[in-house]
């Protein structure tokens, strides 16, 4: 995540600026990378993890703070536990690739 963050922000910033008519929002999108490299108080890291509800979860966000040099309150995390995570993953994939039987999945 750390090595790709600016790449993603840069690409997302360009896309997002082009799909909004709200100038303030567009400006915000246009400043994403700037805020990131300046460790602006509005910048931060969020991590979301999804897994089986019976997985043994322990300290899964502990190391996030050591990768990104933000203040502690600039880190956010979410944990989603699902009864049958692999079934969800399969059905999501089927939905996305519906009708693509003739193609090899990427």
């Amino acid at each position: 995540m750390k090595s790709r963050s600016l790449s993603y922000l840069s690409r997302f910033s360009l896309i997002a600026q082009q799909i909004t008519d709200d100038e303030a929002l567009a400006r915000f999108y246009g400043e994403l990378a700037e805020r990131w490299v300046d460790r602006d108080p509005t910048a931060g890291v969020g991590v979301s993890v999804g897994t089986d509800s019976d997985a043994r979860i322990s300290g899964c966000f502990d190391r996030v703070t050591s990768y990104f040099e933000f203040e502690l309150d600039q880190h956010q995390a979410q944990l989603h536990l699902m009864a049958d995570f692999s079934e969800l993953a399969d059905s999501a994939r089927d939905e996305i690739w519906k009708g693509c039987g003739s193609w090899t999945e990427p």
Partner: protein
Amino acid sequence: MDRALDPDLLHAAVGVHEQLPDPDTLRQLLADTEVNLFLQQGDIDEALLDTAWYLQAVATARPDLQIYDLPRQRHAHQVSGHIFDLALQSTDDFSTTERLRLTLAAQVGYLGGDLTPNAAALARRAPLPDPPFDWSEPGQMSLEAGVLVLALDRAATYPLLDARRDQLADLESEIGDVTQTPYAAVDGVVRGARELINYLTYGSREALQEARQHLTRAVDTPTAASDVDSRWVAAHLLRLSDELQDTSAWSALPPDLPNLSRAMTLGDPPVLSLWPPQLSFLAGADGQPSPLDPRARRLMLSFPTSAGKTLLAQILILAHVASSDVGNVCVVAPTHSLCRELANSLNRRLRTLGRELHIEGPVWFEQTKPPSDRVTVMTPERLAGLLRSDPAALLHEYSMFVIDEAHLVAAPARGWRLEETLSLIHHLTVDTDHRILVLSAALGNQSHVIQWMTVDDEKPVKHHTNWRGPRRLNAVYTDKANFGEATDEPPRGNRRARRHVPMYGKIHLHTGDNTVAGEFIEPVGTLVLRHTKEDKWPRDKTESSTERERLVPLIAHVAQFGAVLVVQPTRVEAQRLAQEVADAFDDEDSVARNLTDLARSRLTEAHPLTQIAPKGVAFHHAALPVDIQAEIEDAVRAGHIRVLVATSTLIEGVNLPFKTVIVGRRGYTDSAGEQIESIDPAGLLNAVGRAGRAGRETEGWMILAEQSAAYNDHMFDPLQRTGNDLEIRSTVTAESALAGLSEFEDLARTTQDAIFRHYDAVADGFLSFVWFIAQALEDLERAVSIDEIVAVIERTLAWQQLDPHQRQGLVRAAATAYEAFEAQPRDQRERWSRSGASLPTARTLDTVAEQLLGRLGPDLTIDLEDLPAVVGFVLDDETLTMLLELEENTRRGFKPYRSAPRDNLIDVDLRALLLDWVAGVEIQELADQHLAAIPDDGYRSEALAEFSASVFEHHLPWTLGVVLQWVNTRLDATGSAHLLPEHLPAAIHYGVSTKTAIDLMRGGIRSRRLANAVAIHAASRTSDPESPLRDWLGSQTITDWRELFEASPTEVADLLSFARTPGAQVVSSVLEGSDHEVPIDMSDHSIDTAETAALEPQPGVPDPAPIQVVTPAGVIGTIRPADHDEVSQLLSIGVQLNIVVATSTTGPTITISLAP
């Protein structure tokens, strides 16, 4: 210093941020990375990549939001493009998708930073798919399309996009409307990209509008939100569509000349977007009129190499051709090689207009009327010859003169000829609409040159730029002995002890205020010290590695990254180094086979070039035959040469691509012990310009090898010069020339014969020019007086550069020469001033002509069809000796070995050698028979090649041409029934024995062997013996040619060009939107008319392969040789074609038209 390392630029682009390196650190990181990548010793630092992505966000922020100012955004583009580019060259193991992402990001950076051609160069290195284009992940497919579109590579883009469009249509038939699925973004990219290319190709505004709609949909379809790469590509293409519109030929060129725009976008290679300096010149920057305005009568373009000067010249030439019927264009280039290159590239655009180009042959008197094709390309000597023959006809025929590489007016040997010709044309057209365009990479903003081309108060329209696409890295290469690693060799017998010290090569890169250096890990040579009786350790010259040997590891290293040009001061050194480089390569490089074949047949098996060519190594210098030089240049262009070692001849304007240029020693010591500078500052600037070719590479390395001294920063000084720093001096301003004129003046006081003595060569040229001015004024029925002559001299560059005292000297010399002109009988002075020779030489040639007339007698008894016999008669021993002893001839015979003194000549029967040459005897046989006294095989071949290039191909045809014209004029006046064959000089020049062979050589066949072989078969043909040669050749097939004449691939290409139907309009007619019928040679298949077909090169056959007509039923026929060139060009343009099989009254045909 390279612009990418400019601290101000880095500061302006990046600023200071907590998470990024500061500008100084960034510069150091960049410089270290450059050196490490050069030495193949490292990856890209992650902090650099982060900076690049940050900069891209800065650069692509919406301008209307004014988050960043525009200059900063441009700087950010440039720096980010550079860093992404470095990342792509690193050894990092990026995935295909990531590599494509970085490529597109780098392209965006370069385009936004006004470095347009680098976008195309990047695509050449990108991991792009080959047909049949397997389906892959949508984001990757979009990235591939985006990279190709930004490279403006139409020929590659259309097939890929069409395949993707079909695949998406198949998908749609299974899942319904893809625009409501995760494929919406890739679908929008594919359709949008195609319409964008359509717009750039055909200029249709509707296509541009559609492109924008598709791309907008791609960015903003919720179902494809997760396809970030496709949306990112679409967002970039959408953002860049305005810019591409502004820079396209359709916007930048005048709308009233649509044919001109079409010639650019549909010519070959296509120009879909113009580069910044081209746009600014065409827009008429700095308050000047547009150069396309016919009222701009004098134009000066001073562009460094790789800035798009040639294309601008093409635009001006084509605009002239397309917009007026008032006259034709004469293009002048300094060498036959460059003429050929210019002609080929121009021809491929002119054909889109249905126009023809002509390339003039060498400078003989046989043809005194200028050709009347719309565009003719010739050397300065040929232009001078035409001007001398008939100035009125020349000015009537041409209304525009384009002078390429105009800085050669300063060249010691040939500069004056160009200056006098240009000055006289300039003077004679002061009050007319004639236009003169002067082009150079090294003219700078010189007030003298501007003053020279000023007509009264009307200054030339000029444009000067230092812009170039590929960045250039200037480096100095040194080597140094490491005494810490020395090993001692004990004395043995008589041999004294030696100390072997390994030497290491070091590359220094200048970064403004400091230098970054990297060292080669392996030694590049050895310094050997010898222990003397006095207990000293001097250098052992014989056992230590030479400078040349120590250069070889550097050359072999850089050759891994792309073609290398190494410049050496002398021919001998060029050949030796090339040999040593070839020895360093283990592998043979089969792609250089054409060159090897030709060298073997043309120069003998033993010739050094034949020996090294299989390794992809060659040397190039003026003493090589012209066809071999051209073949080497072709091989470099085709990427078949890894290393070319050349003297300065090659760098005078042949546009050859090299990744790296290495300049070794820049001078040599002549036999008198004088230091001669073989690469002058202009030559060095030109060499520098060869490093990194626009559109092919994003960077070029210029390496100055300084092996004789320890490194210091001043070693970079010669590389810092620009065209502005070079002064172009007329050769007449040289001390030796002025002294020669002064000597003439002194002598003229005591003898009337002073005008017929030799002085300095430039002084001789000036005196002959004075005669010619007087003659030209007479021809044009203008008043002739010394004042009129001085008025012309005042139009020379020399006049602008001399002080008043020196000008007086020039005027006095001119007045004295004019007195001598007036004192000479009218017919003699007319002949001599037209000859183009110095006046003493002209007088000798007159004597030769008189003697020949005497020998001819009243009745010609020789068979005038038998060219070798006529040569034998005309050039008897005495005549040949007289011609060879003329001052202008630089080669009088053969030395026994390479280092023999100039006057140590072996006994060779030069006349017998000449007669065998004309009879078509193969070169190996000539060497064996006539030069057996030269013991070394290699040198024997080399000496023969050099002699024939200088004497047979140049001096004798020229002088004999003058003599023949005078003799024939006299024969004609006396009512003689027979004249000497006017193509006799051509037989000597080409070394062929028949008129048919001469016609072939003139028509572009470069191989003497092939011309003779075709001529023999043509003479013995039984079917239709009277049909013209071109038709006869055109009635055969490429396969026939290979079998009958044993034609090599290069020879087949020449024959195809020769056999092309004159005036064929396949390209222009199809591109204009017509259906064009092309006859085909049938194979055994029966044909179904109205069936669609494809045109494909015959598989398994070397290029140029026959073009086959393929239908679903199989191969039904091939394109005839007469149409091959045109059809081949049409295919290479990369537009989509409809090909339908048909029959006509004359047989089966195909109908070609543009696909809708």
